[in-house]
């Protein structure tokens, strides 16, 4: 009997073990980016901007021209790259500490200018690489190494919903929040990431995909329990969906 593969391993994804912890969903997000670039046929004209955090090593897993940005500055670096090489497909890959805290100014203004770049924002509600400290996205009541009693609204404020903020800015052509906790959600995430790159390719404006992801190690949960937490705690606060779609707006 002949085996027919139902999916292909994208060539741009380097075949090697990752440094990510068991149950971490960066690997899925990496693969979805790789598949989107491959499907659109733009791998050879893509320039990646890696950020600070666990995903700084993006360049160990995606065989792309890549520049490493200082903490939070990836959208500014991507702006420089795109202005210098407008023909390139440019994306940043950032975590929630990087993008929603130290990099808040850079992401807001990059989106607002409508830079023709794509931002993949992986939200796992903690600073992963530095040991699980509180992030701007940490859920209320969630215990971290810097809010050991649980995040408190009165003291630390509410978790920031980035996709909703980005969608409200004038330069944003496409903005969605997805999760990769179920097969169905992975398929939706794949479509959203592909859409985001397609909008850049079409020169429509800034595109943004927030990917809800696990951090079992810093959540002190097993991979299975961490995956369940995405559905039970994250999605209720960070609703999935498309928050801006300029093509849809045009159709109305």
């Amino acid at each position, binding site marked *: 009997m002949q085996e027919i593969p139902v999916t292909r391993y994208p060539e741009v994804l380097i075949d090697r073990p990752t440094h990510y912890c068991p149950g971490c969903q960066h690997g899925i997000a990496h693969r979805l980016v790789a598949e989107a670039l491959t499907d659109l046929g733009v791998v*050879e004209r893509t320039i990646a901007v890696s950020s600070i955090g666990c995903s700084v090593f993006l360049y160990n897993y995606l*065989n792309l021209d890549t*520049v*490493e940005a200082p903490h939070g500055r990836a959208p500014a*670096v991507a*702006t*420089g790259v795109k202005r210098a090489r407008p023909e*390139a*497909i440019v994306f940043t890959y950032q975590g929630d500490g990087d993008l929603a805290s130290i990099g808040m100014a850079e992401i807001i203004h990059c989106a607002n200018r409508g830079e023709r770049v794509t931002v993949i924002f992986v939200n796992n509600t903690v600073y992963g690489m530095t040991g699980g400290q509180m992030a701007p996205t940490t859920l209320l009541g969630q215990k971290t190494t810097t809010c050991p009693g649980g995040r408190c609204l009165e003291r630390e404020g509410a978790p920031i919903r980035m996709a909703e903020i980005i969608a409200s800015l004038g330069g944003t052509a496409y903005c969605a929040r997805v999760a990769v906790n179920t097969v169905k959600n992975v398929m939706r995430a794949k479509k959203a990431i592909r859409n985001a790159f397609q909008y850049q390719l079409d020169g429509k404006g800034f595109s943004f995909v927030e990917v809800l992801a696990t951090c079992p190690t810093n959540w002190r949960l097993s991979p299975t329990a961490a995956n369940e937490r995405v559905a039970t705690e994250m999605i209720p606060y960070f609703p999935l969906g498309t928050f801006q779609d300029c093509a849809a707006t045009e159709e109305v």
Partner: protein
Amino acid sequence: MSERLFLKGNEAIARAAIAAGMRCYFGYPITPQNDIPEFLSTELPKVGGEFVQAESEIAAANMLLGAAACGVRAMTSSSSPGISLMQEAISYMAGSELPGVIVNMNRGGPGLGDIGPSQGDYFQSTRGGGHGDYRTLVLAPGTVQEAYDLTLLAFELAFRYRNPVLLLGDAILGQMKEPVTPRVPQQTTDPEAETWCLTGAVQRPGRVLKSLFLDDGALAEHNTRLAAKYQAMETESRAESFLVDDAQLVVVAYGSIGRIAKSTVRKLRAAGHRVGLVRPITLFPFPTAILRDLALAGKRFLTIEHNLGQMVDDVRLAVRTVTDSAFYGHLPGNLPTPNDFEAPILAALGH
């Protein structure tokens, strides 16, 4: 015969950058350098370049990093408080070996200081400025013509060494108007950048421009290689020597202060005093050899700066084991005239 233009220092730098083939400029408003972004916002797009007013100096410098990674000639400009904010990106650029030009029209500090001229940023400029063990090339023009010429040179050096280059002026240089002959640069593109810059990985493995080196020994190796590069930059050191051959006392001053001190030296010469001037044009690499030779020839030294004494450390290092340098600091907050330097020079001469 090329045209003569009557230009402010800021505009001369902006025009020179375009002449040098600059493709991208990123800026943020701050006095006293606003003429640069204002001029470029209209003139750069006319030649097909990209002008971006960034949301902060932090973002402007990181945009510079991104454009530099693509191997194009790119620049940002600011003044002291803004340059402090740029140090993060400058450190990353040095670590990732990215070429870019950063203009600092030095104003008074610390903190908000004032908007007038100062040389308070000498240490920040010549010691790297940000975190880590690195250096940037530092060019310090004293005239508007020199500002034009050194801007052309800055782009050349940035790509020759794959390193950030700082053009260090001050509020005097940025705001004063002088005639300029706009020279035509020999080179306006850098084809050799194609061997390392980001273009999209076509028929080759992806390139990574980074400053993170975690493997055992990798960072030490990287820093050793950078150190060799900084050593090689020594050949770029430049200074103007003025009437030093028979001088008893050599005044050392840079930038617009060097230019004002030159007028004082001229005046004192006319009165029969044997005084000369060395005006460092590169602050890193510092023109150590020139000063050391003069020290060995028996000269005495007086360093004059528009600060509390920063470059004087480098002068002392240059002449150590032979002699020392006296120091006179004119403090920011008021503009010095040649007369202000007469008494300190005569005092150092022993009169």
